[in-house]
Every structure is written in C-alpha cells, then in structure tokens.
C-alpha cells in the first residue's frame, strides 16, 4: 500500500488579529478561532490530489498537541484524508521534538512521501519538514510550488529567492508546501458527516518513546514597535516635493 503522511498543526486562524498579553507571557488564545495552519492545508490538498491521480492508496494526517486538535483532524478527514493520528501532548513542542515524533510515525507507517506546510503561521519557524528529512536521512524539497511523481522519483519546483529551482529527488522524501502549490478545496457538509466515522487514533507522545525537550524558554512576548502614523498629501506634486526634500527622489 502506497501511503502519504501529511503533518498539520492547529494554529490561531489566519484572520484573527493577534494580541500580545499585557503581562508578556504570550499571545491571547482564549476564545480565539483555531484552524489548520494554511500551509498544511495546502500540503494536505496536494496529498489528496496525488491519491486522486492514482499515485497513492492512502492519505494519513497527523498532528501533535492537546485533545482539542481532534477538531482540526476531523476537518482534514472531511477534506478527504483516510485516517488521522493525534499524538497527544499538552506542553509546547520544539520543532526538533516534533520531527522526532514524525520519524516514529514514519517507521510505523512507511510512507513514500511526507508532506507538510513550509511553516506554521504562529511560530513562523519553518523548520519541521527539514528536520524530519535530516533525521530520516532522506531528501527534502522545501517551498514546493509543483510536485511531479513517478514510482521512484519526484521532480519538484521550489520557490527560492532567485526564482524557481527544480530538483529531482529519490523517494521516499519530504516535501514542504509553499502558497502556490495548489488551492485547497472547500469542505462540503456531507463530507463532515462522513468524516465522523473515519478512524482517528490517539496516542501519548511518551508511547512513542520520545523524551520531551524544552530547551527554549520564553522570557517575554511583546508587541512590535509601532510605526509613527504619517501624513496624507493632497497631490502628486506634494508627494514628489516631500520625497525630494528627504533626498529620496
């Protein structure tokens, strides 16, 4: 059976206006809408399309976090994933620990590819996919905007600073999704009903024999320095004059 493993993360929804707590202990999360990290949604969509093309038999979606993450896994199942795994953990997970969890899931499931979003929009770390590939000793193709598969190879177009880079990698491999890889589908109501019957396995992070590491302590969180509000000029002439005065034109 050809399996695809997709990693998703539960994060504060894209549209929520972030507020830093007054005591500097973090970001306000109480009563805030949570969603699948948008880049991970793109990763899942790609996996589903690969399966729909007949190049995979099963799409497994996995996450690490508290029991509340079942909500996001159910959404992923409604999108079309075949089954879900929740590795339960209440504390904060540094990316390398997350990568170790995925390495254990890889050993159990033997997927031919692992797909994740390139970064989560909460911590903006952009690390986990690369770390999984490093621990696994397999290729990585990050920031992918196109993935073409054969039985043994993947040709991946990547969004890099210089433009678009194309790599060829042997399978199994890790891919991380960039924005323009695809546009994720909308979930339809009947699919949400069906998803309730799909398997969702729960296990504790300690069941995987993973030692929790917390090597990065949050000292404080603060809002960014605000920019001074500027002025609105009335005409192009005024704008050009102001820029000339600043020596910018």
């Amino acid at each position, binding site marked *: 059976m050809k399996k695809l493993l997709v990693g998703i993360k539960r994060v504060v929804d894209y549209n929520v206006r*972030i507020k830093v707590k007054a005591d500097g202990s973090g970001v306000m999360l109480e009563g805030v809408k949570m969603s699948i990290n948008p880049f991970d949604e793109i990763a899942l969509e790609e996996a589903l399309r690969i399966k729909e093309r007949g190049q995979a038999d099963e799409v497994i979606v996995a996450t690490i976090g508290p029991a509340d993450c079942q909500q996001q896994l159910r959404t992923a199942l409604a999108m079309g994933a075949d089954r879900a795994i929740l590795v339960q953990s209440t504390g904060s997970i540094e*990316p390398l620990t997350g990568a170790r969890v995925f390495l254990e899931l890889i050993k159990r499931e033997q997927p031919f590819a692992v797909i994740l979003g390139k970064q989560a929009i909460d911590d903006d770390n952009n690390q986990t996919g690369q770390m999984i590939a490093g621990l696994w000793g397999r290729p990585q193709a990050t920031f992918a905007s196109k993935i073409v598969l054969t039985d043994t190879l993947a040709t991946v177009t990547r969004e890099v600073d210089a433009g678009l880079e194309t790599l060829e990698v042997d399978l199994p491999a890790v891919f991380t999704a960039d924005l323009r890889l695809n546009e994720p589908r909308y979930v339809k109501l009947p699919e949400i009903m069906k998803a309730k019957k799909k398997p969702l396995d729960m296990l504790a992070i300690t069941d995987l024999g993973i030692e929790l590491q917390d090597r990065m*302590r949050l000292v404080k969180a603060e809002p960014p320095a605000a920019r001074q509000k500027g002025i609105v000029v009335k005409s192009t002439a005024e*704008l050009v004059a*102001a820029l000339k005065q600043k020596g910018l034109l």
Partner: protein
Amino acid sequence: MNKILIIGEHEGGKLNASIAKCVKCAQAIPDGEITVLVLAADSAAVAGQAAAIAGVAKVLRVDHPANAHALAAVLAPQIAAVAAPFTHVFGPSTTFGKDLMPRVAALLNAPQLSDIMAAESATRFRRPTYAGNAIVTLEVAPGSKIVATVRSASFEAAAAGGSAPIELVTPGAEIPTHTRFISVTAAKNDRPDLQSARKVVSGGRALGSAENFKIIAGLADKIGAAVGASRAAVDAGYAPNELQVGQTGKIIAPELYMAFGISGAIQHLTGIKDARTIVAINKDPEAPIFEVADLGLVGDLFVVIPEIEALIGR
C-alpha cells in the same frame, strides 16, 4: 569562549550580502570568535570575499564537486562535521538558510531559532512570531549548540577591511546522491536586487494584469529601484514569485518603499515594516497600508505614476 560558525551563502562566485549582516549579528555575542564557512565546487574566490569582512577571525573553505549547487541534503552533513567545535551555527534567513539550517540543527541535535532580530547574550535572542505581531525573547538552555537564521532586515552589514586567514578543510562526511539539482530559472534584469535595494517600487492587485504591472517596473527603472509585489499580485500572475514581499516572501528594509495599489494585508506589512520611508498610493482611503505609511496619497496609480515621472523629469 563562544565560537560562532556562519554559513557563507554564495551564488555565481559572489558571497551573499546577507553574510555581512550575519557577522554583525554574531558580533553582539560576548566573548565571541567568528568563523565563516564556504562550501563550493571551488570556494577560493568566495572565501576571499568572506575574509575581507571586518570582524571575521577565520574562513574555512570546503571544495567538493557535489557542492556546485547549494543542496541542503548535500551541504548539511558537511556543515555538521565542521561544526563540532563551535557553540553557535548561523545562516542567513534567505531561502538558502531557511532550507539548510534546520537540517543542520537536526544532525547536531540542536535547537534552532529562526529569523533572529537581536542577540542579547550568547543564549538570549529576540525573534518575530505571528507574522511579526508578537516579538519574543527566548533563552536557550545550556548544553547544546545553538543554530539560528539571521533576519537580514534587522542588521546593518559589518564593515569591509578584514583580512582573516583562510583554511582549506575536508569534512569527511558522507555526501548523499539522492537529491539532484536540475535547473533554476529567474528573470534576468539589470535592476537592483530586491533584498538589498535602497529603493523598492511595489505593486498590488490593483495593477490588474501582468501587462499593466510594467508601469511599476517603468517607474522603478527611472528612479533606480528594485521591483516588489504583494502576494495578491503574485497569486494573480501579474509578477513572478521572487518579487513577493511579506511574511512568506522577502522581508526587506529599503530606505524608500513605494506601494502602489497594495491594500496592506498584515502579511505584507510584516515584510516592509523596517523600511525607512513607506509611501502608499491607493484609491481606497480606508486601505490599511495608510496606517503604516509615512506619506500617503489617495489616488489612481495609473494617473499618479505618469505624474511622478513627469515631475522628476525622467
């Protein structure tokens, strides 16, 4: 003593401008000694450029045919082997560094801090989260190396005028063949590089087409600026991906940023908030870009751009 290893990104025989900024960041670490590592097929020229950055104590160079193209899977084991005596391993927060450094961290069993904005001590760093809406200060526990990517927009370049010794080393790491470079395509032009340009002219969804987007490039050429674009403009196909400015595109800090027809989504503002002067031209007086603009003008960009060009006589 803190021994900091900086990975010297390069392309076409030139050291990336972000490396002098990594050096500046590393200089804030007390009792530090800075080494730059250059890996290439033939690293001599680039190593020489790294040695000329003031503050660099030593340059290590690795020559291997497999290093002709920067592939994370190929470079990471070599870097991990060289990194053994170092306390810190830094790379730039470019797509090169973002791709490579976590793989190095995994091989070193080290935590990574992405996009550091400041080093407050050898173990305490500041970095942005939530698209720059929460700046966190993190303390790393002693006992492991620290891997980090350095946010270029937060640092000036370290000065020139160094003359560090250069040493050729052979890491002896096993180099995988499972990852192969095929090609890279980039629009070639003579404009300044978006990441390091002093001036940037940027366009958004309001441009309406790739054809119309040329008006942005036209103004940029007249004032010697780089061209940028919002995610909306890139998604719509008006501009190529490498021009995207914002949370998931490039984070830039030019002296002048001119935003035409960009509404100013928070993800875009993340990419420009270190710009010295932000100019916004938008038809919608309620556009959020005006909240951060130093100079705003409510108007139609297709009228305003020709007016600017006429007024500057170019």
